[in-house]
C-alpha cells in the first residue's frame, strides 16, 4: 500500500551546491508534518520541488499512487496539493472575495457556486467581513490568512505552507495556529515549512530537520529538539 504522500531520495543541486541531499519522508493522511532547519538548510528548495516550481535532479515525490515530481505547478495543484508563498502574493487589485474565488473556480466553472465556496473559506479564516476590500489594502496578518484561504479554496487534500507564521506577532501566530488546527481537525493534511518554533511545537505531529540539505532528525517535536545534532545545527557545537 502506498503512503498518502511520500518523498524518496530527492536531491537538488544548483551547479556545485547541493541544496537538497537525498531527502526521504512519508506523510500520513490527517497529519501535520513540519520541515524545519536553519537558514539555507534547503527547506524552500524542497518545498518548491513538491509544489512543482522546481524539478528534482534525483528521487521521486509520490502523492497517492501518482508521481508528481516534474509536473507543472498548476498540475500539482489540480491533483490536490495546494501551496502558499512565503512572500505573500495576493492579487492586489482584486477584492479579497475575488482572490479566493479564483481558487474556488478550479473545481467549478459556476461563479455562483465558487462564490459560496469562497464565502465559506473566508468565514473559516476570519476574513469574511473584509471580503469587499481590495487585497492590497490588507495588513500582513490578513494577507497571510488570505494566502491560506486562496489555497484552501482549491479544495486540496494536502496543504503546503511556506513559513506562514513569518512576520506575525505572537498573538497573530496563535490565531493562525488555532485556524490550522481547526482545518486539520476537519481532515486536512498539512505539510509546513516553518521557522517559528513556537508554532511548530504547537502544531506538528512529526518534524523533519534539515541541515545543509540533508535530513538529520525525524520524530515528534519533543524528540527532535532533544537530538544533539539538531541543537548543534541551530545553536552551534558549544551549546551541546
Amino acid at each position: 500500500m502506498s503512503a498518502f504522500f511520500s518523498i524518496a531520495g530527492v536531491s537538488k543541486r544548483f551547479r556545485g551546491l547541493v541544496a537538497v541531499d537525498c531527502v526521504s519522508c512519508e506523510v500520513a493522511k490527517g497529519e501535520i508534518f513540519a520541515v524545519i532547519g536553519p537558514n539555507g538548510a534547503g527547506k524552500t528548495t524542497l518545498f518548491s520541488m513538491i509544489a512543482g516550481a522546481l524539478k528534482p535532479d534525483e528521487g521521486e515525490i509520490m502523492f497517492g499512487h501518482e508521481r508528481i515530481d516534474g509536473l507543472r505547478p498548476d498540475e500539482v495543484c489540480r491533483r490536490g496539493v495546494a501551496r502558499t508563498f512565503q512572500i505573500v502574493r495576493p492579487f492586489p487589485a482584486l477584492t479579497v472575495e475575488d482572490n479566493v474565488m479564483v481558487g474556488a473556480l478550479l473545481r467549478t466553472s459556476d461563479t455562483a457556486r465558487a462564490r459560496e465556496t469562497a464565502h465559506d473559506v473566508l468565514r473559516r479564516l476570519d476574513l469574511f467581513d473584509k471580503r469587499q476590500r481590495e487585497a492590497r489594502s490588507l495588513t500582513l496578518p490578513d494577507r497571510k490568512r488570505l494566502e491560506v484561504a486562496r489555497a484552501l479554496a482549491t479544495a486540496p487534500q494536502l496543504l503546503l505552507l511556506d513559513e506562514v507564521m513569518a512576520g506575525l506577532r505572537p498573538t497573530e501566530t496563535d490565531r493562525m495556529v488555532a485556524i490550522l488546527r481547526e482545518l486539520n481537525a476537519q481532515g486536512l493534511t498539512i505539510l509546513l515549512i516553518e521557522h517559528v518554533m513556537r508554532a511548530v511545537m504547537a502544531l506538528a505531529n512529526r518534524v523533519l530537520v534539515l541541515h545543509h540539505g540533508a535530513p538529520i532528525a525525524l520524530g515528534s517535536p519533543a524528540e527532535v529538539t532533544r537530538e544533539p545534532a539538531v541543537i548543534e545545527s541551530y545553536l552551534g557545537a558549544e551549546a551541546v
Partner: protein
Amino acid sequence: MTHAGIPRHGLALLGALLAALIVAPHFVNDYLLTVLILILYFAYTGQAWNIMMGFAGQLSLGHALYVGLGAYTAATLYVHFGFGPWIGLLAAVPVAMACGAIIGFLAFRFGVAGVYFAILTIAFAEFARIGFDHIAYTGGSGGLFLPVAQYTQNDLWNLRGKPIMFYYLMLAFTAAAFLLCQYLLRSRMGYFWQAIREDEEAARALGIDTFRYKMFAVMISAGMTAVAGVFFAFYYNNLFPEQVFHISRSIELILAPIIGGIGTLFGPILGAFVLTGLSEAMTELLHTLGIDVPGAKQVFYGVCLLVVVLALPDGIWPWFARRLGLARS
C-alpha cells in the same frame, strides 16, 4: 479596478447612453456622423485590445496586424471572388485568430513576457506591413481598392451604402463587444485572466493553466479586432499596407482604453469619446482662433493626454465611477 457587477444606476446610465447613440444620427450633420463612427470604431477596437491587456495583462503593441488581416482577408475575397463582407468576416476572424495563436504560442511557450512580448507583437505587425507591400495579388504597396459608387440604397448584405448604415453597424458591434466583455470578465475565464494579470506565478500555483488562458485571451482579442478590420475595409474602400499595418495604427488603437481606464468595461468607450472628441474640438478651436501652424494640433493634443495621464493614472473611468458612486471603493 474592475467592476464585476454593474449597479442599477450604472445600468440606467448605460441605457441612456445607448438611447442617445441610437437617436444621435438624426440630430447631427454628416461631418459629426463620421466623427461618431470613428469614436465607435475606437471604442470597439479598444474593447478588443483591453481583453488582452486589461483583463489578462498581456501588452500588445501590434493590434494593427489583426485589423489589417481582417481588412485584407475580407477585401480580397470581395474583390477577387465576389464574396460579401459577411462571408469575408467568417474567414477574417479565423485568420486573425490563427495569427494570434502563432504569436501567443511562440511567446508563451518560450517565456517571452512583458516588454519583450510587446516587441514581438510589433515585429509581427511589421512583418505583415512589409510582406503585404510585396504581395501583388492584394495590390502590393499600391493598395487594394473596393469598387465605389454613389448608393441610393443601403445594402447591408454587401456593406455598400451611406455613412448612417456604417454608424449603426459599428454601434451594434460596440454594444456586442461590451456585452461579450462583460460576460467574459464575470466568467471563470475572466477571473483566471485577472489572476494572471495580477500575479502569474500565484495564478499557476492555484491550478490555472496560464498558457492556455493567455492563448484564449490573444485569440479572442485578435478575432474581435479582425471584425473591425472588415468594417474598416468596407467603410474606407481602400487599403494600403503602409497605413493599416503601421505602428501608429496600433498605438492609436490602444489610447482609448488607456485614457479611459485599462481593465474596465466603460474605459474604452469613455476614452474613445474623450480622445476623438478632444482631437476634433482641437481642430475646430485652432481653426476658429486662426492658428495655422503645422503640428500645433498634435502638440496640444499631446499635452492634453499628458495632463490626463498624470492626473488620472488609472484612467478617467475609475475616477468618474467614484464620482457617480458606481465603484465599490
